[in-house]
């Protein structure tokens, strides 16, 4: 009888710990209502113009950041690793720097390499159109141009849960197409 109780308790404990570990994974907050992403045009540090609406049909990871923001710096290596895996799968990554110049960012990327486009929002006009409260904030834009997910604060972008979410979003589009 006691042995059965112990076995049940052990099973319960294992299920609890498994459930708790699953909750501890990295997550993105889904945004219901298919709110359209505000369009913008910005130059990147290489002088190339990016218009958000040009990426319709692709999943876009849109990150707002600065070089002096510690959690922004912390998440850039994982963004780069995620980008290396996703760039050939139709996913776009754009990192909009708020208020700094290309020289500052160039120096910064010597320590924090980033292969994805780094866009310059020198006067903060673009970030003002988005409901950003703090840095970093990242929005995931669905292929139909709506904002699908949001992450306030840094994330580990090559975490398997996040990568799965991004790939699923892109696959929905490919399935629909």
């Amino acid at each position: 009888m006691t042995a059965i109780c112990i076995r049940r308790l052990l099973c319960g404990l294992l299920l609890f710990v498994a459930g708790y570990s699953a909750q501890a994974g990295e997550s993105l907050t889904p945004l219901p209502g298919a709110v359209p992403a505000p369009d913008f045009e910005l130059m990147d540090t290489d002088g190339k113009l990016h218009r958000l609406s040009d990426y319709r049909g692709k999943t876009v990871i849109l990150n707002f950041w600065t070089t002096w923001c510690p959690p922004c710096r912390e998440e850039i290596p994982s963004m780069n690793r995620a980008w290396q895996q996703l760039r050939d799968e139709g996913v776009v990554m754009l990192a909009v720097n708020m208020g700094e110049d290309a020289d500052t960012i160039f120096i910064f990327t010597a320590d924090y390499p980033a292969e994805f486009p780094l866009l310059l929002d020198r006067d903060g006009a673009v970030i003002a159109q988005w409901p950003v409260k703090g840095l970093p904030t990242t929005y995931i834009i669905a292929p139909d141009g709506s904002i699908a997910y949001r992450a306030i604060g840094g994330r580990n972008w090559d975490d398997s849960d996040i990568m799965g979410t991004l790939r699923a979003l892109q696959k929905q589009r490919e399935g629909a197409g």
Partner: protein
Amino acid sequence: MQIHRPVAILSSPRPQPGMGRFHPQRAAGRLGAWLQLIPVAQVLVNLVTIRSLCLLLLLSVAGTPLAAEIIRGADAETGLRKWHLVESRLEVELVQRLPDQTRGFFMARGFSPAIADEIAVSCIFQTIVRNTGNQADAVAVSIDLAQWRVIRADGEQGIRLKEPWIASWPENAVSEASRLAFQWALFPTRQEFLADDYNWGMTAFGLPPGTVFDLDLVWQEDGKVRSTRIAAIECAPDVERLQ
């Protein structure tokens, strides 16, 4: 808890000096009585196992904050002091910023020495706020810094908020780029955090360097207003006090 297993107990009925003559039958009877205790001991062992499992369960639950927990400490590298609060889904960390750190930060972003100094000596803390809840419960944590109160023996005051501060600068005294840097470097006055969301930024408590104060934090969680107090927070001292 120490368990007295029957094997260990069995050694005690042996004749000891001064105990009198050894009687084999009586000894056998005693042995039988001890052997009858074996199932009882097994139950005891099982109970201890259950207790250990319960403890393990409690330890794993300890990762989910249920009651207020305030930890005071210091950064191992810088020696700057910090206060860390976890209550329900709210996690707040306040880390001292030396006035010189803040002076340097804002002067590097185009502020005049006078305005950079005004900011630097306003008791600035690096502040991190997080919603420690999980996606499944989808409970938002909201803060409004205007509701936080700075308590001292001689009275209380609010936090110095960035909006009126920016508005107080004459238009030509601070460039647009500097205003932007200030706007984004200071913690948002109001913000809602869903599970896993966190933000960081500077908060200004508007007190001279080295001042000690209590902070009443107010937040909304699951539609309810909650509050707690962190006692004896200390503004970082300025350079001359460090020498």
